[in-house]
């Protein structure tokens, strides 16, 4: 039998609410409505789901989607063993059986035909047919499906079908406001408010450049990385270059501008 405990979130994850999203999620879960969280990368989507799983005391199964993922990676497949073949449940099937929150991270990365398998689970049927095995799973009453989705890719190929989109209630995440983000950095890493505010300022500079050579601004996650490095004794400018600038761009002009911003902020 599956060990449910391994999927439980035991420690309270730090999550700074930006609005009434916690209450709204609780309402959605009470009705077992499938949830979609949207927002730029590293703004706290996964952390929010983790926090909610902890708050509701439900197991959480996370699947990171990629473009090579097939339906059988989600649902399950036959494997070989000494006596022949054996069926192995995929993460989605497991979640439906044990009543977990199944979190499909970056769902647009998965191929479109893959996403179709979640359809029967996300409407009134709440079933998962395993066609290869010839089994129809009735989802556990506690089961809920959550997907995350980054609309910032701006790629025609990487968008959800309407038939998929219209099965979810949605939460829109943004990078937190400067004060909230400063607080998050300070709480998450123990960094003092002054340096945190400076990091947030550099983050804002990069976010202003989104669409002008940057696909995505500096995420809260990267800011946390930078703060962690500074906290560990790395020289702030070097830490910022390493954690904030080098990962996000190869464009020399942008790199130069951001490096200058770092120098201007950390004088």
């Amino acid at each position, binding site marked *: 039998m599956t060990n449910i405990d391994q999927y439980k979130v035991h420690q309270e994850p730090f999550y700074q609410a930006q609005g009434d999203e916690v209450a709204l999620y609780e309402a959605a879960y009470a009705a077992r409505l499938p949830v979609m969280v949207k927002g730029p990368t590293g703004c706290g989507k996964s952390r929010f789901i983790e926090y909610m799983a902890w708050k509701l005391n439900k197991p959480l199964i996370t699947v990171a989607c990629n473009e*090579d993922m*097939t339906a*059988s*990676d989600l649902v399950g*497949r*036959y*494997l*070989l063993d000494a006596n*022949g*073949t054996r069926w192995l449940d995929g993460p989605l099937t497991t979640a439906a059986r044990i009543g977990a929150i199944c979190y499909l991270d970056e769902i647009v990365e998965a191929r479109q035909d893959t996403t179709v398998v979640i359809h029967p689970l996300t409407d009134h049927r709440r079933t998962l047919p395993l066609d290869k095995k010839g089994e129809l799973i009735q989802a556990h009453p506690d089961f809920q499906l959550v997907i995350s989705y980054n609309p910032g890719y701006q790629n025609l190929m990487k968008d959800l079908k309407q038939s998929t989109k219209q099965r979810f209630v949605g939460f829109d995440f943004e990078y937190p406001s400067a004060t909230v983000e400063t607080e998050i950095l300070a709480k998450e890493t123990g960094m003092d408010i002054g340096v945190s505010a400076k990091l947030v*300022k550099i983050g804002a*500079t*990069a976010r*202003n*450049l989104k669409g*002008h*050579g940057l696909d995505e601004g500096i995420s809260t996650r990267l800011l946390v990385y930078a703060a962690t490095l500074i906290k560990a004794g790395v020289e702030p400018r070097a830490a910022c270059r390493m954690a904030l600038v080098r990962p996000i761009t190869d464009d020399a*002009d*942008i790199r*130069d*501008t*951001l490096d*200058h*911003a770092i*120098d*201007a*902020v*950390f*004088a």
Partner: protein
Amino acid sequence: MINTPLDTYWQELDCGFPRVAEVFPDCMNAALAVLSPEGVTAYIAQARFLGKMGRGAEPILIFLEEWPEVSRHAGEDALPFVMEFIRKMSKSPNSKAITPFLQSLPATARRLHTQALLRDYLVIAHDLMERTTGSVHGIHQTFPSPGLPEMFKHIPELLAHLSLGGLKNWVDYGVLYYNDNPDRQVEYFSLQSADSRAVLQRERHGVLLVDNERKLSLYLRGMWQDEDMLIPYSVAFEEQTKPVPYYDKLGIRMPDVYDDASGITGLDRYRALLAHMAGHRRWTTTIIADNMSPFQRMAVECLEDCRVEYLAMQEYPGLRRLFMALHPIPTEDACDHTKESGVRHRLAMLSRAILDVNHPYKNTQLIEFKDKFFSLMKQGDGSTQEIAELAISFVARTRLQSDNLPTTYFTDTVVEYRDDNRQMWQFIEEGDEEEAFDEQRKIEPGEELKGLPPRHYHEWDYNNQSYRPDWVSVYEGLHPKGNPADIDRLLEKHAGLAKQLKKMLDLLKPQDKVRIRYQEEGSELDLDVALRSLIDYKSGSSPDVRINMSHRNDGRSIAVMVLLDLSASLNEKAAGSDQTILELSQEAVSLLGWAVEKLGDPFAIAGFHSNTRHDVRYMHIKGYSEDWNDEVKGRLAGMKASYSTRMGAAMRHAAHYLEQQTADKKLMLILTDGEPADIDSKDGRILIEDAGRAVQELDQKGIYAYCINLDPKADEYVKDIFGKQYTIIDKVTELPMKLPQLFISLTK
């Protein structure tokens, strides 16, 4: 006693010009102070030569006056080289250039500073003389160099912006292109022609705004959430009035180039300027100018500048390093208050004191106002109005009788990264001293441009292995329309061929997901194979271990640009056919367009021809976002051929569209019937080499250029342009069949 040696020198000089006699004693005194005894002897001897040269009094006069100054910079032993050059000029038809040469010599020596550089400079000048002298009609050494005296007249300006290497390139360019046109040569060397200035701009030292426009826009946007046009103005050709940066509703005006200064790079100087202006744009409000005197306005501007910089530094403390380095430090008692007005000086000191905690000033009033400024800023951001009140009281408190003196103390009072603050003032009455320049320059809204403005492309010149900047103008327009039914008729005519093509196309069509069976490792178990293996295993024979299967993406991502040469030669009849090459091309391209449309690859079609470098026409037939519809077919049906083939420019222009496609592979098919040529290009190699260069540029952009050449004699040049990426179709009549097939095999 003093007169005796002078008289001796005068006798040695043996000069009859009365004008020389007047200045000789003064010159000699200057020379004796600088030159060694041998130097003086040589000085007199060479002056004597110049006096006897038969060019009037001018050369000897200038020489006598200027040489002591020159020798201070370049050393007196530079004289033989200089004289050698003068002798050469006097022996050639260029003796008229001697006077401007001598005239420019002190400025040149001052700028170059060392003898070695001066000698290099003489080599360049000599080279220019040799190459531009007297070959106009093939009669050796008869006509003087038109450009030489012009260059001497402009040499101070040139050296202010160019290193000697840059000067050499600039001279080479002029010699190369204007050697056979004396009038144009004079224009070039007197810095009047556009390309003379363009080459000067290219060769100059310092950080150019055009090269860094994107960085600076990103800076403005990223750090100041501001955006505007960055418009360069030239500082090279305005010696008298130095323009000051400013911004208005049309954009931000900045110098076209900044050299590094006080340890700050040119780029950072631009950033300091932008930070200052962004500060104004964010924090400055307009105030009414009418009630203030000019002094009061100056003070308000200065303190407001300080305020926005203070606020900007609160935001980005790192700016302080730039401002501190660039702000001048006026010396406290440098200004003599009895003789000159010290208003600017006082304000510059106050501004420095506000910026720099460790300022050297002791003046109590200055320090009092500095403290007042900071106590004002402690209460918040302050406002332009509050600053104005502070500034007015500063003017009132520090007023001196001498402030109205006509001479003003200027040294160290100009802060270069500050704009002229014109946006700060609102004038209720149009005064009699200010003229409202802005009023007449309104842009009428709704006035639309007719046709697209030309795009300029460089052209490669293999002779001196460099690009000619902005050499070719490409005008883009829609191709005139014809009757789309003609194209449909052509397709019907080739229905048999189309059927054949269709079969090939179906094979090419992307399947997207392809199953690969018999894999040892794969994403999924292939149940059929697995069971067979298991049976084998159970029955004792060795099982096949390749029981998995996986998938492969078989997508197709190719963007295509078909570039058609529409030069006049296409109107000729193809060998062995009644049709012209143009008609055959039309059929071929129609079939190709139909085929590519079936495949679903993004593709575009354009034609080009040229009538000199000033008029390259690029005619849009189909764009990437357009479907293969009647509109497009109409344009294709209307294809007309005329003029010549300037291929490089057309390829560069087409590439800028293809470049923006997101496909993995980018293919540019160029259909042409002859070598690149144009009527203004005498040297046939130039356009071939340029096209070859364009292919290399495309390659760097990830574009694969492929040429389909209909010229049976193309072997001679096409390899030089396209390397191995070409096909020659000898039988032009087969083109409609060959072209789509070629495309299919290229993209398989």
